């Protein structure tokens, strides 16, 4: 083999000019291919790592509560972040809450629509890389980025020069904003402009930034609540999907229930459920009275939700429960509530009576004791009484999800400590699948389309529990990956045409070479070289030429990319600006991309060389020796 390699190599140098020309053409093709590939990777890197990851993180845990699935609210931030942080372990760099809001901003006589995004600048230690990224993203024309966290200023904010001009505001001016908070109430706030930034990225131009804690307060989040969680990983490409899978597994919900004391209210009261908490006791003296009078005698009950909006699950409930009073339509309707016959006896209640439930929420607001929610109270009308047994529990009340979840989420109970005393139906109970859980964990998506379909399906089911969805950047950005693939296919096709022309050259050169060396082929065959070795000589010759051309093409590509990266493009007010980094083209050559391209070219060259080489190998030695040019 070494001998064949030496012959092939020397044969290459025999026809220097011809091979240099052919090699140059191949090197040019390789150079174009690598530049095109690196450019498409660069675009993908910008979209992926600088936009998608900025918006959704490497791993994103998104939560939706509410009718339209558009309320990003999780009621137990510490629990969620603990699960996420412990699961990600040492693969995690940091986590952040993703909170943003569309709003109308009023400047000095001008009005503009903006997106207000919260950035955690206070409780966050930045790495050098993050500082560089922030400096790159926030090119401050006036003010300092760190002023976002200045507590002595009223809601400090940074906005782009374009929006500052549109609102006619200068540093230290006040911008009034009107928006809807997470509960749908219209609110207004004052923001102080502490910085104006220049940004070529058109997506960043319409965003105003404030400190995360300020924004959460504006939006009505309580201190223990959060929106979506974004995780930043050390090695996202390696770990993102795996971490997302593990977090998804760790987020399997437990059963939802409320351990409460139940009291009978005036049986003539309204059929509509009423809700109150001890914070508004002063405005509802009847509730205080009821509470005080029956505190010691009220039985402890477990309130359990059933998924009444899901028809198959509703039917499962219907088949599993026998009612001693009440009609099915009311009991399993959206205000439906059925009490066990055991409780009905104790409380001496019948269908149509109203019960009031008292329970202790997990979180008690300590910073404002005067408004502290020490005890949550709500009431609901008994729509039916079921015959209890061991599987249903005796001190149990089953509620339609639409009735249960608003009370459950508004004042989240401490399920962990309450579970010692609550009745939780066993897994083997026939109706267990129809019972509600703390939240609904959506299946992992594999693409953006998959994700959209899944959310539509969840919407159709009218799930009342909060939904949690765990995505890695690959699913969030699968459209970006598709775009990268499309770019790669376009560039690859263009380069393939180029290569087709070059390969015609390879075939022609080889045919000419074989013709010139026919007598030589006859000689080596006569001496005793096997056909396969003759074939190998020509194939190796082409492979060496291609390999040299590929190395030269790669070097040329890197030189060209370095040159192109030094040219600054001044693009403002143009979406194409997002394709630039620091006003320059962004190339991301990858080892796998380069090796893959060279491997492909080598493969094509060898295949192209194979057929004329085989023809040479199959020449009859006698005919070849008779050949004269």
């Amino acid at each position, binding site marked *: 083999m070494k*001998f064949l390699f030496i*012959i092939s190599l*020397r*044969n290459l*140098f*025999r026809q220097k000019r011809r091979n240099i020309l052919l090699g140059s053409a191949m090197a040019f093709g390789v150079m174009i291919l690598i530049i095109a590939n690196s450019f498409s990777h660069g675009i993908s890197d910008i979209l992926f790592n600088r936009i998608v990851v900025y918006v959704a993180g490497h791993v994103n845990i998104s939560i939706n509560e509410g009718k339209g699935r558009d309320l990003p609210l999780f009621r137990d931030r510490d629990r969620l972040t603990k699960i996420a942080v412990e699961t990600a372990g040492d693969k995690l760099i940091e986590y952040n809450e993703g909170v943003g809001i569309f709003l109308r901003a009023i400047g000095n006589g001008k009005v503009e629509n903006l997106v207000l995004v919260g950035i955690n600048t206070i409780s966050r230690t930045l790495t050098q890389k993050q500082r560089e990224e922030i400096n790159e993203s926030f090119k401050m024309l006036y003010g300092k980025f760190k002023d976002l966290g200045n507590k002595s200023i009223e809601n400090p904010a940074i906005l782009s020069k374009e929006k500052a001009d549109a609102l006619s505001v200068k540093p230290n001016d006040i911008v009034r904003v009107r928006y809807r908070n997470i509960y749908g109430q219209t609110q207004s706030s004052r923001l102080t402009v502490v910085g104006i930034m220049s940004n070529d990225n058109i997506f960043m131009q319409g965003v105003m930034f404030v400190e995360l804690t300020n924004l959460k307060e504006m939006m009505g989040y309580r201190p223990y609540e959060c929106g979506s969680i974004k995780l930043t990983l050390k090695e996202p490409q390696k770990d993102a999907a795996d971490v997302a899978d593990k977090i998804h597994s760790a987020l399997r919900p437990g059963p939802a229930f409320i351990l409460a004391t139940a009291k009978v209210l005036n049986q003539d009261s309204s059929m509509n459920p009423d809700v109150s908490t001890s914070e508004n006791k002063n405005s509802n003296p009847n509730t205080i009275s009821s509470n005080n009078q029956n505190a010691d005698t009220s039985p402890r009950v477990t309130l359990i939700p059933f998924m009444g909006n899901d028809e198959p699950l509703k039917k499962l409930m219907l088949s599993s429960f026998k009612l001693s009073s009440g009609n099915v339509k009311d009991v399993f309707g959206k205000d439906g509530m059925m009490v066990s016959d055991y409780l009905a006896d104790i409380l001496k209640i019948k269908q149509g009576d109203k019960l009031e439930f008292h329970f202790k929420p997990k979180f008690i607001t300590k910073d404002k004791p005067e408004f502290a929610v020490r005890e949550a109270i709500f009431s609901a009308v008994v729509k039916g009484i079921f015959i209890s047994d061991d599987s249903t529990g005796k001190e149990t009340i089953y509620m339609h999800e639409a009735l249960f979840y608003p009370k459950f989420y508004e004042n989240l109970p401490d399920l962990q400590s309450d579970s010692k005393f609550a009745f939780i139906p066993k897994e083997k109970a026939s109706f267990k699948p129809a019972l509600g859980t703390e939240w609904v964990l959506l299946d992992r998506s594999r693409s953006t389309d998959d994700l959209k379909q899944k959310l539509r399906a969840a919407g159709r089911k009218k799930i009342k529990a909060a939904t949690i969805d765990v995505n890695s950047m690959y699913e969030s950005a699968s459209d970006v990956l598709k775009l990268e693939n499309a770019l790669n296919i376009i560039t690859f096709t263009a380069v393939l045409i180029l290569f087709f022309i070059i390969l015609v050259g390879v075939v022609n050169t080889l045919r000419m070479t074989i013709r010139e060396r026919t*007598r*030589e082929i*006859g*000689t*080596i*065959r*006569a*001496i*005793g*070289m*096997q*056909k396969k*070795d003759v074939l190998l000589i020509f194939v190796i010759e082409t492979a060496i030429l291609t390999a040299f051309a590929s190395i030269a093409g790669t070097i040329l590509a890197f030189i060209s990319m370095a040159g192109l990266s030094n040219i600054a493009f001044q693009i403002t007010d143009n979406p194409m600006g997002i394709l630039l980094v620091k006003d320059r083209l962004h190339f991301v050559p990858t080892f796998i991309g380069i090796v893959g391209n060279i491997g492909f070219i080598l493969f094509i060259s060898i295949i192209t060389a194979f057929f004329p080489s085989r023809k040479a190998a199959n020449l*009859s*030695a*006698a005919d070849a*020796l008779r050949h004269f040019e």
Partner: protein
Amino acid sequence: MNIIEIKELTKNYPLGSTIVHALRGIDFNIASGDFLSIVGPSGSGKTTLLNIIGCIDNASSGSVNIGGVEITKLNDKEITDIRLHKIGFIFQTFNLIPVLDVLENVEFPLLLMKNRSKSEVKKRAESLIDAVGLSEHIKHRPSELSGGQRQRVAIARALVTNPDIVLADEPTANLDSATGEQILELMKEMNRKEKTTFIFSTHDSNVIKYAGYVLKIKDGKMVN
């Protein structure tokens, strides 16, 4: 003992729309160690006969037995092996590999044998180069040698595998008469030293005197 036995050998090949009968029933045997000359005018079938004996062309009919092996029944791989191990070639136009130097050209057949050590190959090649008097040109490429020197390299290459038969197709045709005589003397010497059977074709009557035996051929037939 016969190293070559040929019976009723014919070779026809198409030339445009006609069939050329290059050999029309040749019968002869050659004993091991002979120094045989095949003579005849141009187009008589000398090269075709040598090509068939050298296993680089096929017979149309008849039998060709070389060293006890009927070569007309072998496949390409087996025939190539016979060429490598049993036959050496000396061509009229020398046919050296231009990208290899003298040593590499002589080593070439041994390297194709694959089961020889590098030092063994080199030692054997150098001894042959020394025997043909080219030790001082061992690193020269063919283009740096004279015609006579090239043919000496070809002789060394033909003998390096220690073959049973060396076939030389008009080995002196491209050389001046003095050099041609030197080459024939060298072949004769090698025939004596190595006990290798030499068969060479020629149409030069001055060359025939070197042959131990002469086989005359005309129009594809043997002539007494």
